């Protein structure tokens, strides 16, 4: 453990985060705004990586969990007028319940079958939001009376702190015995069971943890945006972005999810002058990266260091 804290990657990460925390003193509000969104997306991708990279669960519906967190928090705010922290906790709770509900089919299904179930969960959530438009805001989205802050700097620092803490916890989990058992269960469930591990308990816990961070991040994101809408937190396109970010950054690394998400969003901003074509160019870049380096951006960094 001691060795880990003095390792190069660790020092590099701490250094980057330290510089990142000082950014509000040097750069414009606009960059802070871009990075704020990117940091919340980073947590989405890291949570997804815990499920996929470690437990091997093909979750095509990260936005089911994100959406539950976002709408749970948003509706608590707009309908019940509860204080913001309470709303965020309600959102996180809703997401955890949703995560456990997803874990039940995951105990029986794998691969494309589970993928489809998670996809259908997103579609159903979307339908429910539209059908109960009276309380959810429907197609139009939910406008929320409260936001975290109007100013960019505090919003940025909240998001950075949240990403750092979440990333540290998820990373620690992935490197713990728990993470190793998950990985074993994902790769060879029969052997893992034969070794005496309770796979059921571990899988449910993995879904709950992933849901907790997805939900928290979704809740914080809507309190940053001041609005929750299907196309912002539930749409399948958002889920696709989360998955692509995790694979692009480097799966089974946790940190890779953050790198991928930040890369995708920052690249999208830099390519903004291309207008409509920016998404196309980002998709091409992502495809090239995963074809050339299956371990993603993090893999590329590592490869350069070893050669």
């Amino acid at each position, binding site marked *: 453990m001691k060795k880990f804290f003095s390792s190069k990657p660790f020092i590099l990460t701490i250094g980057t985060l330290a510089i990142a925390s000082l950014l509000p003193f040097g750069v414009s*509000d606009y960059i802070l705004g871009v990075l704020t969104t990117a940091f919340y997306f980073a947590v989405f991708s890291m949570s997804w990586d815990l499920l996929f990279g470690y437990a091997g669960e093909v979750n095509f519906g990260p936005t089911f969990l994100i959406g539950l967190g976002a709408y749970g928090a948003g509706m608590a705010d707009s309908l019940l007028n509860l204080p913001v922290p309470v709303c965020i906790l309600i959102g996180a709770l809703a997401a955890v319940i949703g995560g456990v509900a997803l874990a039940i089919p995951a105990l029986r299904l794998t691969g494309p079958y589970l993928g489809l179930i998670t996809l259908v969960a997103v579609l159903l959530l979307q339908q429910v939001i539209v059908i109960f438009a009276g309380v959810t805001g429907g197609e139009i989205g939910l406008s929320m009376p409260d936001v975290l802050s*109007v100013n960019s700097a505090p919003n940025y620092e909240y998001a950075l702190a949240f990403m750092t803490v979440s990333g540290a916890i998820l990373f620690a989990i992935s490197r713990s015995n728990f993470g190793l058992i998950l990985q074993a269960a994902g790769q060879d469930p029969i052997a893992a069971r034969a070794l005496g591990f309770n796979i059921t308990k571990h899988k449910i816990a993995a879904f709950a943890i992933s849901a907790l961070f997805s939900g928290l991040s979704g809740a914080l994101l809507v309190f940053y945006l001041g*609005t929750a809408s299907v196309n912002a937190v539930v749409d399948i396109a958002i889920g696709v972005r989360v998955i692509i970010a995790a694979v692009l950054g480097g799966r089974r690394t946790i940190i890779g999810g953050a790198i991928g998400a930040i890369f995708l969003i920052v690249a999208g901003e830099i390519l903004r002058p291309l207008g409509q074509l920016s998404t196309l160019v980002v998709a091409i870049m992502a495809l090239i990266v995963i074809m050339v380096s299956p371990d993603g951006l993090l893999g590329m960094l590592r490869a350069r260091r070893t050669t």
Partner: protein
Amino acid sequence: MNLKGFIAARSIRAGLLASAATMLVGFAGWAVSPAQAADPIKIGITTELATIPGKAIANGAELAADQINAAGGIDGRQIQLVIEDDHLSSTDAVSSFQRMVKEDHVVAVVGTFVSEVGLALEPWSARLHEPYLITGAAANQLSQFVHKDYARNKYIFHAYLPAAFLAQAVCDASHDILVNQFHMKTAVILSEDAAWTQPLDAGYQGCLPKAGLTVEKEIRFSPDTTDFTPIYQQLASLNPNVIIAGWAHVGVQPTVQWNTQHVPIALAGINAQAGSSQFWQATNGGTEGVITGNVAAPGVAITPKTLPFSDAYQKKFGYSPAYSAYTTYDAMYMLKDAIERAKSTNALPLVAALEKTDMVGTQGRLEFLGQSSQFTHALRYGPGYVTGVAIQWQSGQQKTIWPLNLANAKAEFPSFVKLPKMAAN
């Protein structure tokens, strides 16, 4: 390599480096230039470029900016547009709105035809004290939001008609055409399930009976519906004279299926996509006989400004303007007018000047409703102000059939539509 080649290669490399550095610096926002009196006035446009009405917003703004700049700008300052695509996403729209305000320091933001995007941007307009003119979305809530908390939300202007007024326009046109000319008596409301159609349907329910049409049923369907056969079969058994539509997200499919299935009921109301000149091809001519409300129509001089605008638009872009081009073009001129009267580009004086807007635009006389109206800061509707027009597709062309004093054609329906027996004939 000879010397010349070396220098060229070096300068190319230097150029690349320099441009990379500029990009970096630009991105980091360290380049600060001192404000000067002759600095351009920046106006932000947030829109959806991949859609017909969204593209029309950008086009309308561009045309207005070109014309204003050619005529000397606003008090000698040129307009510079910052056009950003929100890809129909409220998240993208919010971040782009913040970017335009904080990075580009735009004087005002104009745009969006999607109510949910507009509603997501409104709180940010209020929080950042940034004047925002919505030029294509129609939900009542957009201007009711201003009414609810005027002091906080006064920066928002709904430079288009709220759905309640659109419903009134449809009722007025239906009375003059369908009831008076064709003796129709019964109607069915058929709207997509979206925020803007809730007040629209409520409006229809209230004003259609007064216009002389009994509402037999109100049907709402999901905007992702693609097969309308069940709905049309159900309608055929009710046998009303006319379908009063509330469509914007959908358009092509229900129109085409109305035509291919020979639904024997006239189709009128608001079919927003049918307002675009590209709709004929998109529906393979299935739109023949369809009536829709629109803000203006080709070749119809609602005001002296209408035709010069649509001609210039046609010339610049090669196709005719969609409704949101008229509203955005007018909004740009309202901004110019307000900045000149306020002699300032600061938010509060600009808002005060916008509230006093009284000018003739392409759609009619433009005035914003006051604080006492539930639709605070929406355009005033009615004769003498903005009323819109009703157009009908006839042999591949959009003909104006209402208001009657502007009409250039009489309404007529495809042979498969069963019309009530005319007493006069």
